């Protein structure tokens, strides 16, 4: 994990800041300098919705080394109330309790650890409401 990268992504990871295009009005996450939909440079920061519904989910049994401490964990594709979709972990629940279409809310958590004494990366996950 690279400290400058963690610092650079802080607004997206910690606050969920994406963009809204002032020309085509489309919202996008993560941020880009030009609108991915219409190519306009006329974009401004936009904070993504805090709540959404679960579209798809699965339980991850095996993954890369900085995330392996957390396995097994649940990851899902969440559609937010503003139409933006994100991939994120689903926490504070049991895999068997989860259902497609469940209402979820964003929560601030540890995403990855670089060993016992290394950096900790934070970001958002979702939990059932």
């Amino acid at each position, binding site marked *: 994990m690279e400290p400058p990268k963690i610092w650079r992504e802080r607004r997206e990871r910690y606050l969920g800041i994406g963009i809204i295009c002032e020309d085509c009005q489309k919202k996008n996450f*993560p941020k880009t300098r030009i609108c*991915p939909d219409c190519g306009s440079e006329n974009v401004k920061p936009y904070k993504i919705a805090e709540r959404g519904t679960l579209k798809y989910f699965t*339980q*991850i049994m095996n993954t*890369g080394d900085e995330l392996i401490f957390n396995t097994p964990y649940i990851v899902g594709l969440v559609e937010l109330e503003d139409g933006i979709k*994100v*991939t994120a972990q689903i926490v504070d629940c049991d895999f068997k309790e989860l259902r497609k279409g469940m209402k979820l809310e964003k929560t601030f958590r540890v995403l990855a650890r670089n060993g016992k004494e290394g950096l900790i990366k934070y970001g958002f996950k979702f939990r059932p409401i």
Partner: protein
Amino acid sequence: MSNEVYIIGTGQTKFGEFFNLNIGDLASEAVNKAIENAGIGKDEIRTLFIGSTVSNSLSQSSIGGICTRSCSLSSNAYRIESGNASGAAAFHHAFLSIKSGLYDVVAVLGIDKLSDYIQNGTIEKILASSIDYQWEYEMGATLTGLYSFLTQAHMEEYGTTLEQLAYIPTKNHQNGVLNPKAQYRYAIPLEKFLNAKRIADPIGRFDVATPCDGAAVVILASERYIENKKPHSYKVKILSSSAGSDTLALQHREKLTELKATRLAVNDAYNKAKISANDINVAEVHDSHPIGEILAIEDLGLVPKGEGGKATVEGLTALNGKITVNPSGGLKARGDPFGATGIAQLIEIVEQIRGNAGKRQVEDVKYGLTQNVMGTGVMSYVSILGRGDN
């Protein structure tokens, strides 16, 4: 004179775990076999296009010089990367280099050595490099986790069942038994796939292709070269080589029930080859996960949309079925050394067209197709091959 492009030679190592061989060892075996097969001199090769995902090691990403030295080649060489589809991407560029009239003879080497990285989660990170590393992998997803979403979307939309999905690797392992170059030359019963532990529900632990070691080479030549030199080997014509793209992350796609990049690539490929899906006799497709083959055969137009599972159960895609899919055993039974996979797919189609496929020979092959995919389908390459006398 038109500028048609032909495959005049092929060479391939066995795929598997070779802890005693380095990348140069694998490259030289495949290159030498291909040169011998083509009946040309090493000095005739103008450029070596290398399709490779992780190369020699995580720190030696420039492998052109390593491959030319170990193969005793004096040509230019460079690496082309397109994740798990690096082999097909390199082939596409080699094809363009001859089609443009610039070169007459080039070689394409697909190569990866992944058995060094199977421990400690490294292979999962390598696989994550062809999905959205920041906003899928770092958020918790893996390549197999994302294929689980694709599987669920298809099951929901078209009623595809776990049993239908399990028929894919079962069939491909049956074919792999007949392929001397395959990593796994044994059949696995359907029940074993169905009863296995789920690694990313609904995907089971035996469903996923295994990253391994291997190298595969095809040698391409121009029509002008063949008319002047007439190499002895039976030539196979490249009717088209096309590419398509989609978004990197699944969350940015409108729907998860199709591989848009594959659809775009194949439409272009059929147009350029002036044939349709009905003309294809044999196809090698990207079955890294069972849903990958179902999506591939549907989006390539080989079976109607939504009926990939049903068609597989009915045996339409079995060896000498209506259209044979993955006679080599596919990524699942052949093993998946990422960069080498796309080239091994082409070699299988060349062998089928030449009539050299032994016990897995499909009857009367006129046209064959390959489809190689990066990640969950962000880039897709489709090539159509035909007999040299077409």
